[in-house]
């Protein structure tokens, strides 16, 4: 059994991150799911939420993912998202402003999106 899996985090208009990892944690509609090498083939619907990738060199990559899919087969994992941002790409101030605005306007989806961004950036 291979000790690592190949991860590709792909947004609709670009490839956000790809590399080797030992563990990927993502949020599906039925709860958080952790995928390690050798997991059974899986295809799931992702919720808007942070995705944590533990890379094989010991680092951690966190990304905010808004909707999409996780698919895993043959130690190849793809995370497909309409919008995905790595934690260091996130503009914290903008997300905070967005959160304020969403709260005052009562826009639940925008609030959730901003919240996910902030939480991903905070890790």
């Amino acid at each position, binding site marked *: 059994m291979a000790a690592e899996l190949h991860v590709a985090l792909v947004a609709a208009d670009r490839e956000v991150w790809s590399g080797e990892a030992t563990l990927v944690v993502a949020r599906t509609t039925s709860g958080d799911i952790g995928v390690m090498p050798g997991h059974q083939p899986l295809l799931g619907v992702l919720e808007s939420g942070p995705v944590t990738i533990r890379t094989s060199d010991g680092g951690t990559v966190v990304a905010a993912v808004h909707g999409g899919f996780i*698919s895993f087969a043959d130690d190849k994992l793809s995370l497909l998202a309409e919008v995905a941002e790595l934690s260091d790409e996130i503009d914290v101030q903008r997300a905070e402003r967005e959160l304020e605005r969403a709260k005052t306007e009562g826009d639940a989806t925008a609030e959730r999106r901003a919240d996910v961004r902030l939480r991903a950036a905070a890790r």
Partner: protein
Amino acid sequence: MGAQLRVYKRRIRSVTATKKITKAMEMIAASRVVKAQRKVAASTPYAKELTRAVTAVGTGSNTKHPLTTQADTVVRSAVLLLTSDRGLAGAFNSNAIKAAEQLTGRLEREGKEVEIYVVGRRGLAHYNFRERKVADSWSGFTDEPTYADAKKVAAPLIEAIEKDTADGGVDEIHIVFTEFVSMMTQTALDDRLLPLSLEDVAKEAAPKGEILPLFDFEPSAEDVLDALLPRYVESRVYNALLQSAASKHAATRRAMKSATDNAGELIETLSRLANAARQAEITQEISEIVGGASALADATAGSDR
């Protein structure tokens, strides 16, 4: 300066100005083609993975879904036509419109009602001018479409196909767009977007007869398919929008290149004519002077005697 020469000079100046403009437009279009091509390439991984996933669900489960099942009798079809907002692109828009008209004609001959959805002001103008009904239209983003634009376009289409035919829904969706084959070749083509033919998708995803693993679906195959298919449609629309944009820029580049070349030729011809006119003027002046001088000489010679 003679009147003839002045007219030529003025025309040369105006054609030179036009040439400068078309040259600039050519270069802008050339740089935009490259950018648009890069965007097509950047969207490929997503589209590829999505196609793989759709195939996996489609072949790995016996789920029936309105987006994959062919209706017994197709009453209404939707046609999505992608054109551009601006012209100056040779036959780009007319080719796309012609392809859409042919498709519409074919569908109508098969006894189907056709609803037209149009992207781009050029296509919309075509239908408005003929006072033909357009179900929905979008414009303003055809030069650089984003994924959000594709979502906006795909949303009413998905809604229409999910609705019952009796309530005004459609049974199939066709898309007409201009495929970017190469810098020199772009072809307008039509493609059935929905219902999906899973065999075709499977061929696209795994051309080498690769066997897909048996997936575990989270939460269930139906839910995954429910979520997956609209995304698949969006991604197909996005890809078509990007290809159409790249094709439009390539067509503009070519049209502007031939306009620049024509302007160059015109300037050359006009310069020749202007030179001939100037030469004729000089020749005339010389003959006038010579004629005048010899007349004077004759007169003096006469008075001496």
